[in-house]
């Protein structure tokens, strides 16, 4: 094959005919449009996958237009085509779902059109070669997503959610524009491939450092990181497929932005430290709030906040391949979780069927942590022997993840758990541990060569590593002992504050008038 460009560049274009069709038939039951929109989403997926294959086989040139500050273009490497394939896949699943789900809606055709345009913009974003391309794409995503959030425009909740989303999202776009301005003034280019080389040659300097800070800020806003996470917890006002696309595709843009600009971001120690702190805190905060949420989609939204925080933490640690793996894994999981959220009634009923949950005691939990760490040591040693040594950051991250596995082990070690259950949970724990080490090894093999390696930790980073491991370990330990303290009166207040997300969203509402009567009331 000697195509001059990557097939994945065509993926956004493949969606346009159906989007035009939708513009002509925006109403109810628009004939064959739903089938066309699914078919074109599938075509976009296939094209993106084609690009992935091309880049796997060898380097593929990008395409570009214009010069200087207005330079726009697309690039094809294993990162961009993998993310495009992921988005294409989610897009196909979501459009297939919408084909049935939206049937009979008054603005059925318009929905398909808006979804397709959003999808196209995300596909462009994933493959952007320059900052202006990123800015145009993300701005377009903001425009169409806002319209989708207002799919039921008469709902005051939808109006509030859309307003909040738009403000945070566009603030991120403004940050990106600032970054572009600063970086261009310093380096004279906005080509994402050329910027790191320029930065390496001349150092970031003040303007460059500010530019990177702006990129980090944009990423934090777009991944719904603490403290401006509130918008993400309200956007289930749009039909479920929008939530699925948002949580599995659009929300990744912050991470993709960071990974795309990885060499640049990594050259700023401050930016990396900020990512570790913002990401680590958001991860724990979101996860804790999620525990208190009784509405499935709301709980899933908090889960996304927390998972995206974890991804930012990985970026901050310089574990770029793992961050990318996390994006892929999380998207697939979250798309399924949203689209199948109607099963929640059956699932909750199923939880109660086999009787009460066996509660592990403190010794059992300690034992489970020891066991999990032993599993970690064995597997880490085995993988190190097979695939080479791991960085301190990767080991720290492994330890954090293994604390999670300890929770699974602990449930099987509860005094009243039957032996058969202990065996099963132990087997699952082992499978989980092997599973993520394998996926990480694969990710490293695919993306390792093109993404920067984790830097040698500085003193600050060592300190952050220790704090991160300690705090995740502490939370995991508390979590395993959860039934022993969660209903104690002393924690009742904590539960109220956490269930309210520590009121940050309420404060944001107050600041932007979110409590006020909307037009339709």
């Amino acid at each position, binding site marked *: 094959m000697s195509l001059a460009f990557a097939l994945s560049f065509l993926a956004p274009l493949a969606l346009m005919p159906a989007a035009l069709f939708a513009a002509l038939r925006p109403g109810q039951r628009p004939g064959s449009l739903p089938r066309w929109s699914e078919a074109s989403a599938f075509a976009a997926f296939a094209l993106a996958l084609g690009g992935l294959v091309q880049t796997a086989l060898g380097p593929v040139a990008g395409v570009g237009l214009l010069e200087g500050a207005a330079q726009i273009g697309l690039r094809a490497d294993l990162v961009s085509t993998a993310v495009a394939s992921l988005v294409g896949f989610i897009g196909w699943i979501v459009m297939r779902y919408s084909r049935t789900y939206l049937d009979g809606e008054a603005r059925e055709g318009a929905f398909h059109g808006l979804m397709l345009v959003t999808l196209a913009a995300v596909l462009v974003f994933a493959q952007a070669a320059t900052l202006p391309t990123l800015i145009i794409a993300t701005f377009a995503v903001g425009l169409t997503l806002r319209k989708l959030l207002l799919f039921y425009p008469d709902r005051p909740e939808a109006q509030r959610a859309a307003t909040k989303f738009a403000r945070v999202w566009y603030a991120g776009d403004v940050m990106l524009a600032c970054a572009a301005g600063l970086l261009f003034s310093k380096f004279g280019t906005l080509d994402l491939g050329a910027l790191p080389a320029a930065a390496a040659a001349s150092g970031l300097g003040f303007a460059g450092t500010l530019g990177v800070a702006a990129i980090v800020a944009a990423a934090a806003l777009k991944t719904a990181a603490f403290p401006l996470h509130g918008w993400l917890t309200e956007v289930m006002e749009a039909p479920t497929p929008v939530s699925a696309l948002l949580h599995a595709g659009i929300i990744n843009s912050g991470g993709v932005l960071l990974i795309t600009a990885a060499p640049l971001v990594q050259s700023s120690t401050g930016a990396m430290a900020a990512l570790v702190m913002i990401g680590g805190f958001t991860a724990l905060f979101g996860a804790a709030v999620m525990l208190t949420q009784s509405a499935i989609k709301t709980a899933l939204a908090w889960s996304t906040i927390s998972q995206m925080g974890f991804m930012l933490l990985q970026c901050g640690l310089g574990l770029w391949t793992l961050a990318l793996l996390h994006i892929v894994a999380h998207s697939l999981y979250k*798309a399924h979780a949203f689209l199948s959220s109607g099963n929640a009634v059956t699932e*909750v009923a199923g939880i109660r069927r086999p009787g009460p949950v066996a509660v592990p005691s403190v010794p059992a939990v300690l034992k489970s942590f020891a066991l999990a760490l032993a599993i970690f040591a064995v597997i880490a040693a085995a993988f190190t022997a097979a695939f080479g040594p791991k960085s301190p950051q990767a080991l720290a991250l492994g330890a954090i993840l293994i604390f999670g596995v300890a929770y699974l082990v602990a449930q099987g070690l509860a005094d009243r758990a039957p032996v058969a259950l202990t065996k099963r949970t132990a087997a699952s724990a082992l499978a989980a541990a092997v599973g993520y080490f394998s996926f990480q090894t694969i990710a490293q093999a695919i993306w390792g060569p093109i993404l920067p390696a984790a830097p040698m930790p500085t003193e600050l980073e060592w300190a952050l590593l220790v704090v991160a491991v300690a705090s995740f370990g502490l939370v995991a330990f508390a979590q395993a002992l959860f039934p022993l303290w969660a209903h104690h009166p002393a924690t009742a207040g904590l539960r109220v504050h956490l269930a309210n997300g520590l009121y940050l969203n309420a404060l944001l509402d107050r600041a932007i008038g979110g409590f006020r009567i909307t037009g339709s009331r």
Partner: protein
Amino acid sequence: MFMKHSQITPVRLSAILEAAEAAARAIPPAFPLDATVAVNPFLGQTGEDLATAAARLGRVAGIRVTRKGADYAAAIRDGRINEDDLADALAASIAPLRPADTTHLRRAAEQLGDGPAPAALPTVADLAAQATGIDWPALIDKCIGLWAAGQFDRGQALWSPAPGSEAFAAWRAWAMHDLTPEIAGLKGFCAHVAAAPDTPERAILFAAEALGITDAAAETAFHRLFMSMGGWSQHARWLLWQAELAGDTDRTMVDLLAIRLIWEEALLAHAPEVAERWAATVAAHAEPVAPGADEVALAILQDAADRGHQRRLVAALDGEAPSGDRPFLQAAFCIDVRSEVFRRALESIDDSIATIGFAGFFGLPLAHHAHGSDIREARLPVLLNPAVETTSAGDPARDQQARITARSARAWGRFRQAAVSSFAFVEAMGPVYAAKLVKSALGFAPKAKPEPAPEVIGGMSAEAKADTGAAVLKAMSLTMAHGEIVLLLGHGGNVTNNPHESAYHCGACGGYTGEVSARLLAILLNDPETRAGLAARGVEVPADTLFVAGLHDTTTDRVTIYEDGLPGPRAGDLARVREWLAQAAKVARAERAVRLPGARWNTIHQRASNWAEIRPEWGLAGCAAFIAAPRAATAGRDLGGRAFLHSYDWRADEGFGTLELIITAPVVVASWISLQYFGSSVAPEMFGGGNKLIHNVVGGIGVIEGNGGRLRAGLPWQAVHDGAVLAHEPLRLSVMIEAPREEILGVLERHPGVRDLFDNGWLHLFVLKDGKVDARYRPGLEWTDTAPQTLAA
């Protein structure tokens, strides 16, 4: 404060608490979605007629309980309502404000058009919102919603409140810590809650004093507050319902009212400028509830619409069809309207097939434990208490195995959900979800294996078996002329990823499928000990009669046969039955496909496994009639899947015990179903489950819409509307019974609650004679002979 409260007299105290009780009883219960059944949303209003209920619910909820004037005008234009219907409906009305003649009635329909929607009397929150610009009602929805979601959660959140705490105490502890109201501008709310009385009764009383709610105003003022909490009030009312069924009581309703009143009290203190308007509102609440001319006209138009349907139904029932010899196959179905389509199809396949209709729990009051489950499932109409404990545990080792599997799945689920471990889960399992997504998107689902055959826990004596068997067969009017095969069919919906799944199951089985009841009965009736005792109890079952259990899948019309110890030599007979059932399924699917948007007869099965399908089937949408008569009265007539058909032969009913049972149980259950569809169609914002596209399942018990805090009870909009038009024509059920007139009146006299339904027009009643409509019931235990009608009219 102290001086004022010391003046509260015992009379005042009891008046306020009585009003609270009355308001609580005006709310219908909402059953949690894991096993939901239809409930009459007007359960608290059956003591008054539609027009009065319209006035009351307009006042307390701002909803319409009939269709819009324009809808009736359209029905008049296209002939669904004709001049006779209008004249008869007008003549039946005794309302002082009724239109003078049908010309005025027609004009009223045109003039009412699409509006105006009734406006509820404002709450203090509404008034304060207008005065301060802050959307207090939305904030209250959100704050109460977040608290209630946790309080009533059955396992969605890992960190739920301490179990067993009473709602009011739990809420006080919550609200004293929750800073949201203060951030929104309601300064001092936490302190206000802390200073509120610690019992709900005193809190209600103190708040009523502070708000100046008079005794006369209290009932509808409280009703208004209950309605403002939507499904949460209905969930609390369900808790009361369950408690009372078990001979107990529950205080959650009182708790909710106290909570809501504390909010009102705080808002009145926050926005004292609304005091004057609030006093006027209280005065309006003190006015007696009386319908205006619009409500009366709409109620008469609704009656005319009912009569239009009755006119067509009466014409269709033109006398008994001749019935043949002993049938080879006798198939017993649930009375559910979806069975009508399949029964008609099945009977058309072969002359030796007869069908009967009976409530799908077959009269067995079961509390069932499924395979590997501790949950006690009440598989019977919700009006009754279970009396027989059954289990599908089967082989104990397998049951234990199933539990271990379920528990490790649960441990895995907690691993997925918990803090920190959720990160490990995503990294280890996320990529696997690519395969899951493809599977779900393409509709691949593992087929569920049938559970082991159910059995009665502790077994039954030969005596008990024969007693139960004989009682059931007598109630089914099945005491002689049994077929060689008697098929006992339960039914259940077949849907994927649908929170309202249980709404498609069997209402007579408590929102579960009818599988267990059918299988248990077939096993019981094939038991030699049962058979030996039947003759002595007046039931003759031929030796070659074989009872076979099955489950009718109402989505795909497939029937599953359960071979629970069926004798091998009858395999040929069963094969023949299976063949017939498959043929009937094709006919039924073709009929159903016409109504379902985008469906064809050969694609219906895909709807069952499509995880994005929001209209897998129409459920009971369209239900409009209940006919208790021998099948001969309805056989061969196309009733369009709109009639509950109960087989009943009054000649075989000694002492009319079965008649009494039919009128007090299946008729009442059918009225709940028909009125739920009615309520979800005409007042979807209050009695409907909302828009499926933005459903957000909460606590495993119900749904909220999007990010809103209010629980939504009732049927989703997509279950009654196809996008373009209502799939359920809102009509009140026409009950037709073939039995002596005076016996029917006797039953109504003995059951005033049921009589209310007929006297106040929530149901229509007709008596049949030889398969034709003979007389219409008039309020006050009277009959009017119906003139012979023909289709030509």
